[in-house]
C-alpha cells in the first residue's frame, strides 16, 4: 500500500515536471516563430498560408448573421441620406461631364506628344475585384484577407479602394489573399507630396494615421497637402492617391488615408507588373 502511494507520488511529480518542461519548450517555440519571421522564412509563410486558406471560409460563414444585422441598420440609416446624396451627385455629375471632355482632349494630346518623344509607356494594369472576408485592426496588426477566387494575384500587388491606395498583397493562397494595410507597422510606401514633389516614405505604426518619414530636413510640408505614391522602388506606380497631411510637428508628420480603412467591403487588387524590390528580394531568397 505504502509502495503504491509512493509510486503514485512519483508519477505525479514526473507529470508536473513534464508539464513545466513542455511550457518552457512552448514559450521557446513562440519566440522562435517570432525570430523566424525576421528572416522571412518560406516554411513559416507556407504553413500560415495553408492555415489561412482553411480558416478564411469559416470566418466568411460566420460573417452572414453579423452582416444581416448591420445591413438592416444600414438600410434605415441610409434612407435619410439618399435625398441629399442624390442632389449632390447630380451636381457632381455635371461637373464630371465637363472634366471628361477635358480629359479626352488631354489624352489625345498626350498620345500625340508621346509618339513625338518615342516615350515607352508603363505596362497595362490588370485588376481583380475582391471581397473582404477577414479584417484585423488592433495595436498589433492592420490587415485583411480578401477572396480572390483563383484569379491571378501576386505578392506585392497594389490594393486600392475607390479613393486611393490602401495596402499591398502580402501572401496569396489560391482563393485568398492576405493584404497588409498602409497603417500596419510592416508597411512602408515610397510617397511624395503631390504639389511640391518632395519625396519620403509613408510608414505605418499600427495607428489609424501613418507617419511620413525620410523627408528632407528643410522640406516644407503643410496640413492639407495631398500625398501620392512616388513610384520609387517599383512596387507602386507613381501618382496613386494615398492620403492627406493632417498634423505637422517637429517630431512627426501624420497622414490620414483618403480611404476609411475600417469600412471597406470590396477592394481592387491591381497588377501593374512593375516587379520592384519585393520580387527582387524573393529571387535573392531563392
Amino acid at each position, binding site marked *: 500500500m505504502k509502495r503504491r502511494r509512493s509510486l503514485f507520488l512519483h508519477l505525479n511529480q514526473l507529470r508536473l515536471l513534464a508539464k513545466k518542461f*513542455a511550457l518552457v519548450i512552448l*514559450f521557446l517555440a*513562440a*519566440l522562435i516563430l517570432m525570430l523566424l519571421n525576421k528572416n522571412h522564412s518560406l516554411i513559416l509563410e507556407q504553413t500560415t498560408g495553408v492555415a*489561412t486558406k482553411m480558416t478564411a471560409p469559416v470566418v466568411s460563414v460566420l460573417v452572414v448573421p453579423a452582416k444581416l444585422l448591420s445591413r438592416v441598420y444600414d438600410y434605415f440609416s441610409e434612407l435619410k441620406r439618399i435625398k441629399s446624396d442624390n442632389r449632390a451627385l447630380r451636381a457632381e455629375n455635371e461637373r464630371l461631364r465637363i472634366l471628361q471632355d477635358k480629359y479626352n482632349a488631354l489624352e489625345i494630346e498626350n498620345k500625340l506628344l508621346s509618339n513625338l518623344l518615342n516615350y515607352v509607356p508603363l505596362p497595362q494594369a490588370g485588376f481583380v475585384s475582391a471581397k473582404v472576408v477577414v*479584417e484585423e485592426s488592433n495595436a*498589433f496588426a492592420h490587415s485583411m484577407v480578401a477572396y480572390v477566387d483563383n484569379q491571378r494575384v501576386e505578392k506585392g500587388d497594389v490594393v486600392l479602394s475607390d479613393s486611393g491606395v490602401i495596402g499591398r498583397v502580402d501572401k496569396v493562397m489560391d482563393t485568398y489573399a*492576405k493584404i497588409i494595410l498602409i497603417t500596419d507597422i510592416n508597411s512602408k510606401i515610397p510617397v511624395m507630396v503631390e504639389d511640391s514633389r518632395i519625396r519620403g516614405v509613408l510608414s505605418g505604426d499600427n495607428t489609424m494615421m501613418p507617419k511620413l518619414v525620410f523627408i528632407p530636413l528643410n522640406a516644407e510640408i503643410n496640413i492639407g497637402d495631398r500625398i501620392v505614391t512616388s513610384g520609387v522602388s517599383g512596387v507602386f506606380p507613381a501618382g496613386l492617391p494615398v492620403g492627406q497631411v493632417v498634423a505637422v510637428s517637429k517630431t512627426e508628420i501624420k497622414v490620414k488615408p483618403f480611404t476609411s480603412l*475600417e469600412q471597406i467591403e470590396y477592394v481592387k487588387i491591381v497588377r501593374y507588373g512593375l516587379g520592384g524590390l519585393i520580387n527582387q528580394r524573393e529571387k535573392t531568397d531563392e
Partner: protein
Amino acid sequence: MNESLNENIVSSLQKSLPLLSSVIILLLAYIPLNVTFLNNIRPDLGLICVYFWVLHRPDLFSLVSIVVLGLLDMSVSSALPGAALFAYLTMYVLLYNTQRLFNAKPFVVIWYGFMALSLATILIKWLVVSIYYGRFLPISMLMFGYLIGVALYPLVSAVLAFVQNKFIQDEGL
C-alpha cells in the same frame, strides 16, 4: 459494440467542445464589421476563452488546446507570428499560479481576475512585440481593446458557460 462506439464519439466531441467553441469565438473577432469605432479596437477574444476554460475546465483545455488556438490566431492574423501563442501561454502560466484565488468564487471576483491577468498578459505581449519591432506599438489602441475585452467578458463567458452546462457532462458524476 455500436453503442459503445457512439458513446465514444459523443464523449470525444464533448471533450473537444472547449477548443471548438474557442475557435469559433476567436474567429468572430475577425469578422468585417464596417463600424469605424469597433473595427479599430478589436478585443482579444481568444484570451477570454483561454481564461475561462483553464479556470473552469483545465482537464478539457490542456496546453495542446492553447497551442492549437495560438497557431490558428497566427494563421488568420497578420500580427507577429508566435505573439498570440506567447500571450495565451502567458495567460496560462499566470492563471495556473493564481487559480486558487478564483476557484469557486463569485462571478465578480473571476471578472476582476480576468481584468488583472489579461492586463498583465497584453502588456507583456505588447512589450515583447515592441522589442521585436524596436519601437513602441500604440498603447491607446491596446488599452481600448483591453477595455472592450473586459466589457465583453461577461457576455463571452455566459456563452461558454452555456456550452459547458448544456453540452459537457462531468464524468463520474
